């Protein structure tokens, strides 16, 4: 059972940390994308959307090069922390953030687009500074977007395989997440363990998505 729980817990840890980082960094990026008239906007949007289109192995390949001990980021990381980024949990978090970026940014941007300027302008005229109006008006009114961004980033990171395989490898307790573990079990014809993990993942994923859609329905009803 420990060999089942270990990879699951690692996956949940990875997904939770990735989601937290993505919501914190993705929110200002999504807000900027939603408000800007900059000519850079389409280019930034295309970059954000790349992970949806690219095979995870391509993403993983480039990340492996950049994060590796001879890559730009990897070398700097080794100098600062003394550890390599590739085949480590930290490297996996960074890779996941890139891999799941569109799943955080796009729902947030849609929510901010749908919000428009009306309520935020009204808040300014009522004495709220831009930061104040953002946190007291824009964020609560975009709650469904935040919920979707959180759940999709979390679920998408949980289901990641190709990037992990390229960047993280298969080190128990460090990078051996649930999808890798299942692949391993199948390879070694241990179908019982593969079944066990898969069914847990399926149930979990369904439960998370169901709660999201239920909660979203409630949020949308409130704002109508």
């Amino acid at each position, binding site marked *: 059972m420990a060999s089942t729980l270990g990879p699951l817990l690692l996956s949940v840890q990875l997904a939770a940390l990735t989601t937290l980082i993505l919501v914190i960094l993705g929110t200002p990026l999504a807000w900027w994308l939603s408000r800007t008239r900059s000519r850079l906007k389409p280019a930034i949007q295309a970059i954000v959307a790349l992970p949806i289109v690219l095979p995870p192995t391509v993403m993983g390949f480039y990340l492996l090069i950049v994060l590796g001990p001879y890559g730009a980021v990897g070398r700097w990381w080794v100098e600062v922390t003394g550890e390599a980024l590739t085949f480590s949990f930290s490297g996996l978090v960074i890779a996941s953030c890139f891999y799941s970026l569109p799943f955080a940014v796009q729902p947030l941007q849609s929510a901010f687009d749908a919000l428009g300027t*009306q*309520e935020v*302008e*009204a*808040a*300014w*005229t*009522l*004495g*709220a*500074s*831009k930061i*104040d*109006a953002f946190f*007291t*008006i824009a964020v*609560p*009114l975009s*709650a469904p977007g935040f919920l979707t961004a959180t759940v999709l980033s979390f679920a998408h990171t949980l289901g990641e395989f190709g990037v992990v395989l390229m960047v993280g490898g298969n080190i128990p307790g460090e990078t051996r997440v649930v999808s890798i573990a299942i692949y391993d079990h199948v390879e070694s014809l241990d179908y019982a363990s593969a079944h066990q993990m898969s069914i847990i993942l399926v149930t979990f994923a369904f439960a998370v998505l169901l709660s999201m859609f239920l909660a979203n329905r409630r949020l949308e009803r*409130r*704002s*109508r």
Partner: protein
Amino acid sequence: MSGKIAVRYGLQRSDFSLNVDAEIPMRGITGVFGESGAGKTALLRCIAGLEQAAAGRLVIADEVWQDETVSRPVHEREIGYVFQEPRLFAHLNVRQNIEYGQRRGRRSDTGFDEAVELLGLRDLLDRPINTLSGGEAQRTAIARALLRSPRVMLMDEPLAALDRARRDEILPFLDRLHAALSIPVIYVSHSVEEVIRLCDYLLVMEHGCIVAAGDIHEVLLRADLPLLGGEEAGAIIQATAIGHDAADGLTRIAFDDLEMWVPGAYQVGTPLRLRIRANDVSLCREDPGTSTVLNALPGSIESMREEGESCVLVHLAVGSGHILARITRRSRAQLQLEPGDRVIAQIKSVAVKNAPAAGR
């Protein structure tokens, strides 16, 4: 409160330019009147600081809010802005919406209870926003703006998005505000009725410029204005085509429960804006029966204003609308007309200005 609001703004857009220089009294309601696209909303947004591209100067009594060197950000301009749409915050209830500006305000001229009372919101305070009717929502928005303790209220056609019943529900509240508060209000409207009913002063805008400014009675009589006054003094009535007489080339129109004939062919259901000039309206005590004048409407005299040596401009309530009639002093004496009297208005000519029924 004494002093004036001095406004000077220039704003260039590809399809529109605003160029205004005006002084607005620090008391009463000042109407900003004009057709759609005349720049009324743009002017309010400049005053509020919402148009970042606008260059100009804004002085509220003794405080400079904007000039060449400084420009207060929106949240530091003490304004109460009521938009065309209520723009309430859907995640907060009525009370929390009203308190949003109050908690961020620096002074407190109007108390919470006073505002709630003035706008009749006592029973709505704990209601979620999505349960409010259009009229209730707009009243909440007005209370919210008031409790920001503004030095000036800006109202951008607050009634335009409402149907007539809701408008009539809110107008009495605006009358009460007018009577109870000392805060100056700048009230944007394209409705002659609203302007006549609510405003003390009037700015008339055309193509981004102010073409007339002053006391409402003077401005309404301005002869040089295409919209109001002088030879053109008169009223606008919103009506709907309900039938067509092809043989005589006339269209039957209806407004409220009154009907008239107008020249021309219009499809049934078309909203029509009718302009009835004061010079084309004569008054009778009793129905004159058959006459060459096709249209005769019952109405009552709301007020009369003497013009020059010989004329009187009579303000009539007809249905829920108003028309003006210019008669001689002699006629008034002969018919012994007084405010409140019921009369028949004979309308010799009705001009159809086919304009959209609503709009910015």
